[in-house]
């Protein structure tokens, strides 16, 4: 099992605030990994650095052995990394089917989608995320859980090797969370490497075999969820000083 994503000494500063501080980590191919940390820990910034939406001040990111540090987002997508966003975004005035079609029309997505026909391929993705009966509806009237599924569908259209999910559970009811969880498990079983963040810890901890913890931009520790949850620094980060008593 090789390393699919290698992050080395990554640092990102925003005029005085160090959002990501000398962060290093490896995501292994085919694995299901979680990234945890309290609000403001730098998780989304880290994702933005990986997906190319932000440029790091220093450090490198290698994907599949290739240096992708500072590459433009659309190029990174076409190399095989797809992501979802914490604040759900969609193409508001287009149907769900068209929403998915856009990623199927990317250079990378097109290679696969062309064989089946763009519309057919987009439909099958909609079916995979459980939204096919709403194919002709625009996203404006969808509930939050469906929008999260749509986001994952859009990411799938680009035929990714690595899927970055930024807080896929936030704002979801318990049922909606279950739906997303099942979907993610199925994707992972199909061979997609999944790297997700969350701070709805309960769901995350049951889902992933390995977790890395982040606080104030820094790498804290990694390992199986139970271990990491009992780590002194992690507890302090989430619950404040003095919580190491709970370990």
């Amino acid at each position, binding site marked *: 099992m090789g390393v699919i994503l290698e992050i080395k000494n990554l640092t990102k500063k925003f005029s005085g605030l160090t959002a990501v501080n000398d962060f290093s980590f490896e995501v292994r191919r085919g694995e299901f990994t979680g990234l945890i940390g309290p609000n403001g820990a730098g998780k989304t910034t880290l994702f933005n650095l990986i*997906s190319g*939406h932000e440029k790091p001040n220093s450090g490198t990111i290698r994907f599949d052995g290739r240096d992708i540090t500072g590459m*433009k*987002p*659309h190029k990174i*997508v*076409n190399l095989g990394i*797809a*992501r979802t*966003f914490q604040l759900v*975004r*969609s*193409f*508001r*005035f*287009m149907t769900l089917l*068209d929403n998915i*079609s*856009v*990623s199927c*029309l*990317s*250079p*990378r*997505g097109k290679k696969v989608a062309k064989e089946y026909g*763009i519309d057919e391929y987009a439909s099958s993705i909609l079916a995979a995320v459980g939204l096919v009966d709403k194919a002709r509806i625009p996203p404006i009237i969808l509930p939050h859980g469906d929008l999260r599924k749509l986001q994952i569908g*859009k*990411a799938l*259209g*680009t035929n990714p090797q690595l899927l970055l999910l930024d807080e896929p559970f936030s704002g979801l009811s318990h049922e909606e969370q279950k739906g997303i969880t099942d979907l993610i498990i199925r994707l992972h079983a199909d061979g997609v490497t999944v790297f997700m963040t969350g701070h709805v810890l309960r769901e995350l901890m049951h889902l992933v075999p390995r977790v890395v913890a982040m606080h104030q931009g820094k790498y804290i520790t990694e390992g199986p969820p139970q271990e990491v949850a009992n780590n002194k620094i992690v507890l302090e980060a989430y619950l404040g000083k003095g919580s190491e008593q709970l370990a």
Partner: protein
Amino acid sequence: MVKKLEEKISAFPSYIRDWIKTFRGKITIVCLIILSLIPLLTQNKYFIGIFLTFMIYTIFAASWDFLAGFVGQISFGHAIFLGISGYVTAYTIVNFNLAWWLALLIGATIAVLFGLIIGIPALRLKGPYLALGTLAMSLILFQVFIMGTLSRWWEGTIGTELFGTDGISKVPLISQDPVIEYIITLLIMCLSLLILTHITKSNTGTIFKSIRDDETGAEASGINLTKYKIYAFMISGFFAGIAGGLFAMRFRGVNPGIFQPLYSFYAIIIVAVGGIATISGSAIGAFIFVFSGEFLRETLDVSLLIFSIILILFVRFAEHGLLKPTLERIQELWDILLGR
């Protein structure tokens, strides 16, 4: 008789058939038939001329609607394409004696090049900044031409002719026969609207719409924003250029006034009235615009004020333009007449 007509229609490819069956398709065909009959119904050159102006503005506005309504790039400087193509078309006909269609294509192609030149800085600008930036570019060109700056650099005949403050005149009409001029302009208008509509309905159109709806999301879906934004400016520039060349030939000349922001605003007003993101709405908007302009001709000074008031009323009460609500009302009326 109706049955024979239906048989004829069933020979057409399926999606055209489906379109004809819709109310919108039928009304469009009726309008097209009426339009084509105009030159046969009247010999009044002036009246035909108004229709020509209407058709040219339709193409111009449609090119703007394409860029703004389908790609989300709002340009306040569309007069640039009108002017560049107008000048190039006029110049090549007058000085090289080219056929009108060749001059027109050359003019539109140079306008496309300008689409490229404008598209590149436009990549960094969004929303109001893009509007201001394009407005600024058109103002610069207007100043350059009206002051005749380049004519001093380009001494000799080219300089004074191309960049002189008098502009280029004595441009021949497309045809001495007004009927032919009319039919050609009508065909070019229909072709332009068809092509633009086809692009918006294609896969490329889907990509364009994604850029309009959510740029970051489009990028995250693997779309190369730079490439597609530039394509969009070039396509829009081409059709605006066609309008510009036709303009030069209809009015028998061009002068620096063609670069005025006023013309850019005309496109925006027409699209606001006719319906943004419709392409064919430009036809309705242009029709209303040009014909009410004629009625208000007496009140020349006040006409812009009146237009502004009308525009405000439209924006307030018919936010998405006239096309859809009008079609719906007419369809209701038609249903009532047929007793449904």
